Structure formats: C-alpha cells, structure tokens
C-alpha cells in the first residue's frame, strides 16, 4: 500500500559530481511517477578546487598510488568542465530512459537568489546526495521551506 503524495510543483536534483546520479534519478523518477512536477537538475559549481589551485603549493595526492602531482588552475578548470559534461550527458541518458523532460542549470554557490526562486515553496523538493550537507550552500537551502530528501 502506497501513501498518496502531496502535490509537488518542482523537483530539484542537486548535483556536484556524477557518482550519485543513478540514485538521485531513481528517487526523482519515483516522485515523478504520479506527479506533474517540473524537473530541474542543478549542478552546483564547486569553486573550492579553483581557489585551492590558485595557491602555488597545492598538490593533488593520487588515490591509486599515494603519489602527488601539481594541482594547477588549468587542472581545476579541466576537472570542472569534465564533471559538468559527464553529469549533463548522463542526466540526459536517464531522462531519455525515464521519458521525462528536465532543465539543466549550472549555478555557483553565490547565486542565492536563483536558488530561492527554485525552492521557494513547500511543494518544491530538493533531492541531494548525503555529501551535499558538507557544502556551504546547504546551510542557505536548509533555511528554505522546501522539502529535502537525501539519497
């Protein structure tokens, strides 16, 4: 027996990397199954890499070997571009499979007004990975009226 859901105006997927995409999309499609809601996927651009890369002594310690390599601005920007492209491509695949339409947005954590517009109502839902709680923007969102689901 399933409980009847309250009307949802908008579902927003908060993305910062591609690792939790399948779970996020699964949760989103479950909500969309009996709702006429708008689906927005927002990639929160993490400027921490670029900021860290601006420091001359920052190095990346490789997970596979423990070795280290220089972490430059170029490297940080490249990582950003690659992640956005990967997230957008995979989101499109999930949307095609689920036969839903979606809007893809890229926001920085400073674009608070835009976030307020997207999650202003109680009938808005934010679906985010659990690691999202560590992002500074989360503190802003937590103050909004929207519903929040972690996967």
């Amino acid at each position, binding site marked *: 027996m399933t409980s009847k859901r309250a009307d949802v105006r908008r579902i927003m997927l908060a993305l910062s*990397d591609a690792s939790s995409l399948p779970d996020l999309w699964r949760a989103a499609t479950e909500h969309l199954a009996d709702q006429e809601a708008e689906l927005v996927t927002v990639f929160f651009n993490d*400027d*921490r*890499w*670029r*900021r*860290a*890369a*601006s*420091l*001359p*002594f*920052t*190095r*990346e*310690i*490789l*997970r*596979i*070997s*423990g*070795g*280290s390599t220089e*972490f430059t601005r170029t490297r940080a920007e490249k*990582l950003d571009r*690659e*992640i956005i492209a990967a997230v957008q491509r995979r989101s499109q695949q999930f949307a095609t499979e689920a036969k839903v339409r979606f809007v893809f947005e890229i926001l920085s954590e400073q674009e608070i007004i835009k976030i307020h517009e997207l999650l202003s109502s109680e009938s808005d839902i934010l679906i985010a990975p659990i690691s999202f709680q560590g992002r*500074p923007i989360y503190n802003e969102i937590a103050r909004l009226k929207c519903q929040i689901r972690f996967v």
Partner: protein
Amino acid sequence: MSGTSDRIRALAVPLSELHKACQPLSIEAGRDEEAAARTAYFGQQRAIDAIRFGIQLDSEGYNVFVLGPLGSHRHGLVEKLAQERAQDKGAPDDWCYINNFSDPERPRVLRLPAGRGGEFRDNMQALIAEIRLAIPAAFENDDYSNQLKALEEETQEELDDLWRSLHEQAAKENITVLQTPTGYVLAPVRDDKVIDDSEFEKLPEEKREAIKKSIQRLSKELQLRIESIPKIRKRYRERVRALDREVAAHAVSVLLNDLKKKYDHLPGVLSYLDEVQKDIIENAQQFRQTEAPVLPFLSHDSSAIFASYEVNLIVSNEPDAAAPIIYEPNPSYPNLVGKVEHRAEMGALLTDFRLVRSGALLQANGGFLILDIHRVLGRPFVWEALKQALFTKQVRIESPAETLGFVTTTMLKPEPVPLDVKIILIGERWLYYLLSAYDREFSNLFKVAADLDDDIERSTDNVTAYARLIAERVQQRDLLPFAAAAVERVIEQRARHAEDGERLSMHMRSLDDLLIQANYWAKQRRSDMVAVEDVAEAIRQRKYRQNRLQNKVVDAIKRDTLLIDTSGECVGQVNGLSVIDLGEYRFGHPARITATTRVGKGDVVDIEREVKLGGAIHSKGVMILSAALSARYAPDVPLSLHGTIVFEQSYGGVEGDSASIGELCALLSSLSNVPIRQNLAVTGSVNQLGRMQAIGGVNEKVEGFYQVCRERGLDGSHAVIIPHDNVKHLMLADEVVEAVRNEQFNIYAARHIDEVIEILTGQEAGKRGKDRQFPPGTINRLVEDKLIQYAIKRQRFSEGTSNDKQAS
C-alpha cells in the same frame, strides 16, 4: 610306328587319376552330433602351437603375427586360443583419469582393482552432489553470516577511523580535504571557505608558513593512509578466506571421511581424496559465489565448479571377467591410442581431463588386442604409435600432430598409462616378410610367427576330420544337414580349390560359401537335406555367374577371331595353354604358339620379351630353350640357329614358364619340318635337359582346351599333354572325366620332351645309338641334321664374308 603308338597310349592318364574321388564317408553333416564334435583348426597344429606359445609367454616382445591368407578364419582361431588364456589371466585393473590440481593440463591417471573404477566414479558423483548442497548451506548458515558481517564491520571501521582521524586533524589546523575524481587536495580554509591566492597573500608570513607546513605534514599523513588501504583490504580478504576455509573444511571433512574409510586400502585413491579435500577448502569462496557475472552471457553452469572432482573412467572391467580380448576393426590413430576431445564454448575449443578417451590399446590392457596388419599399415601414424607403445610399455594419449611436434598450442598432456598387452597381428605372408625385411624393430616386437597352412594332406584321417569340420560349420550356420555323398563332393571340391588332388584347402571362407550356396540350392528344390547334386549345382552356378569372360574367349575361338586350330597339322605351330586369373575365378584357354627357324648366331628370340609383354619367368623359360637345343643336338658344332617364338594374338602380358615345352616343340617342328597335330594342346615347363616340370593351373588348362574342342565337336582325337608331375594335381570337372571315359577326349602325362614330341607329331623322337647318332628319320635326327646344316652354312657364309674382305 606301332612302338610309338604303344608308347603314346601308355602315357594316357588313367581315368581314376583325373578326379580323385573322396573315400566313402559315413558322416552326414548336421545330423551326426558326435561327428560335429570340435574339430576346428585341425591341420593347423603348428600355427596353433605358435599362437599358444606367444599368448602364454609373458615376456617382452613376444607378440604374435598370424600369417595366413584372407578367408582362412584367422580371427576365429586367434580369438578361440586367446579365450583359453584370458580365463586364466582374469580381469585387469580399471583406469581413470582425474584432475591434476597442481597442473590441470596434465591429468593424472588412477588405477583401481577391476570393477572398483565405476564404483569410485559413482561415489565421487554422489560426493559432488552432497558437496553442492552442503557447502553452500554451510555458507548460508547464520553463524557464518554473522562472522562475515563482523569482519566487514571491523574493516569498515578501520577505514573510517583512518579518514575520520585525518579530517579531524586537518580541521584542527583549518585545512580541508577536497576530493577530485582521481585523488585528494588539501586546502586551507577560513570561515568554511577555501582560501585563494589573494587571501593567502594577505596573511602574515608566519601564518602562511604554518599553513604550508600543516599541508605538507597532512599530505604525508594522507599518503600513509592511502598506502595502508590496500593492506587493510588485503587483510580483510585473507580473514574472509580463512573463515571460508574453516567453514568448508568442516563441511567437506564430514563428507569425505566415509569415502576415505571405504578406500583406505588403496593409497592412490586416499592421496587423491586428500587433494580433493585440500582443493575444496582452498577454493571454498567459489562455492558461495552468488553474484551475477559482469557480462550476463558469461554466466556458466555452477556444476562446472565441481567438475574438477569428477572421475573419468576410461577402462572398466567386471571383477570376475576374463582378460579382455579386443578386436579393433578400424585401428585409426584415435581408435588405437585414444584421443582428447574438445567442446565448443563461446567460439573456443576447450578441453579437460574429463574429455580424455581411451583407445583399443587401453581397452585391451591386461589382455589381448587383435589387429589386421594391413589396416594398421594403411592408417597414418598408427604403426609407429603401436611400436612406440610396445617399446615404452605405456600409452600416451596425444594427437599425432603433437607427437610430431607440429602443434605449438598448449594441449592437454594426460599422464601415460602403463601398458601390458599382448598384440596379435593378423595378415598375409607378404606383409610379414616385408616388415621383417624393412623394419628393424619389427622382429624385436613380434617374435612369434604363426604360419597357417593353406592346405593339408588328403590323408584318410584328415578327410574324416575334414568331414567333421564340415559338419561343425553346417551346425554353426544352421544349414540343412548334408548327405554323406554331398560331404564327399564338398571334400573333392576342397581338393580342387587346393589345386591338388592329394591335398585339401583350408580356406574357410570359400568352404563356407560352398556350404551356404549348396544349402540354398537344396532349399530351392524344397529338400530337407543337402544332396550331392546341390553341391554340384552350387559349383556350377558359381561358375555360371563368373564365366562371362571365359565364354567370350571361347566364342572368339569358335568364330575364328582368335585363331586356334583343333584339327589338322601344321609345322612350327602348337596349341599352348594359359590361364586368366580374375581373382575369385580363373579359367584356362588355348593360345597359339608359333616358331620359325633359320641360320643364325644361336639365339632364340622371344618376341614377347622384345616388346616387353613377357615377364621375367617367361623370358627365362625361352632362354632355357637355347640351352636345351645346345645340350641335346649337335654338341660338336656351334648352335647356328636364329629362332623366333611368339604367342600369337596375345595382347596382354605373358608370364610363367608353363609354355616352354610348347615353345620347344614348335621349334623342333620348325627345325625338323615335321607338322604338329593341332587337335592337341600342351602345357608344362622344361629344363635344359629336356625334363618336363610341373606347372600351375593344370585343371583349368585342361578344361579350357576341352571346352573349345567340345564347342567344335569332340571326335576322340583331342587331347592335352601335361607334365607327369601334375597328375597328382588333377581334379577335373565331371564333364571332362566323362568325356575321357567315353573316349571323346584324352589326357597324356609326359616326363620328357621326347614323349611330348612323339605325341604331338606321331613320329618317333629317337634316342642316340651306340654310334652317338639319332636313328635316321626320327625327329631328333632331323633336328640335329638341320642344326648341323645351319652350322655349315653359317661357317661358309663367314668364310665367304672373310674372303670378300680380304679380296677387297
């Protein structure tokens, strides 16, 4: 003249010698149980003794080669004698191939007492079935799940601690750990925000240095943690494996202990069971594998995991059985040695110890293997493989390509199986002699030759025994009983088959054919017994079915296409006799031989040889003629003759020397100018002293001339002259014997050329008197005079030529 006639009459072969009738027999084949007692293989005692000797002597190289023609019932004899010994030897051990757990490409062989191989295979199958249930059940047990979960949690906690402590330490120093797709970045933070370069530059010098040092130190800490993660995971896996082993060991030892008790007297089996136990414990994780494969089409039957514990029984014997006697009718390499089969899987050919198959050598191991040598030699690599197996006393199951080193792919190499087998090769004599001459290893491996006789002496005892043999074969084949007269007729035919009135053929297939066919004709006339006329009908019908070519030849003679005179006289022309052999049937027919003579250098030209239609033996016979002329006539003058001899209208090869007497007579007729009677034919070879010698196919030759004469009308003048030494071989057809009895046809037996020429010309040959001269008017005198004339003419001619040269 009357003396000559008397001498010729004396040379006529007595009627009783033309067809040696069988002694009266009291046996009725098929009715007399006692008579049908075991009589098989009488007359083959030497061969039987040799086979028994070879079969009983268990020593290296004492394998047996049975020599004898096709149809001599060699296989039956060998199997019968092998059975006698097989009972004493008893059943040999069973052989299995089992997995080699340390090197699966080299399957091991396991030996068990007769009958235990199949039992062990079944026991292992049952064990596998139990293990398939027991081991997964052990892993599904709550105790196991709890222990596994505890290990997982312990490990995860250890990993979490690593990161937690790092994060805590970094946070204390206002450093954050950022994750990238490939690693980690340590960055200074202030108010939860990563400091960028402009903010960093604004910090006091000592603060900046402190941040750098913190990041440097934390980086090392991070590196150490990264390096320790694989070790933690490895430790986890080892602990899980140890747990799995512990669980599996407990489950499997319970199951295996019973089996070990059952085979505690077989160390090989116990050792194998220990290996099975060790392998199951080592690979315990596989038995609880429940995850789906990465690629769905790679999923495989779970039974494959347990397949390595199966037993491939390649040789199985009943415990109370006799030693095996295997006859392999198709001794191809795989059928003899064995093979390793493959199965196709995902486009690849795979194999393992379960697909090793034994060949006849292993099936016969501990017993006897009977092979036809012509089949062994006719199949690639088989002879070498057989010899190798006998030399090494083991069977190595591998493909010929592997043996020859043509394959570089990794192949299965099953452990060789020790071999103790007695090989009995069966073949014709020429193959035995060929191998003896050209294969040096042959005599070391096949030290016993058992030579089956083609025929036996036609003694009174042997005839009686032969009648019993007929009775036995009639019973074995469930034929109608044979009347005594029919048995007698069969025995007479066996003498004819042996081409000797004093011997009996031991060719069993042709005997069986005659009995079966006589039985058929008896049934055709709705008789409940085979009578003499049925045997005669069988012989007649067989001839009728096969004599198409013979009738063509007779017809050609009758219509004067082939020129053969059967009346009148002619100088230098004689009727010879030849035989055409069609394999299962042969027949004789007359052939015209002509000779011409003139002055020459003492040579007799064989036209057949000149055009390469004459064989070596025929040419030898013709050359003897020159020697015979030289030895008999005008010894004091050079032989100054040029003679030519030809087989008229012969378009195929001529072989044998049985026409040499006819050729000599044609020469003598030509030299003496005395005509030869054309109503006679002659066959026989002659030596250079004029002595006649026996030839083959005498019966067919006589019958061949008789048939031509009969077609043209017998008048009592027709006859055949044969060597006296061939009289014992006469077993002529009833029709010919009847014709002689009615004085319509005659057969003369001669010992010397003088007797032959007297019969052919009706004139006295002549013997040298005290004056060393042949009597005037005799054939020999005429010949000698002509040869002296030739010598004088030749001398004059030579002198004339010489004078001409001097004058010129």
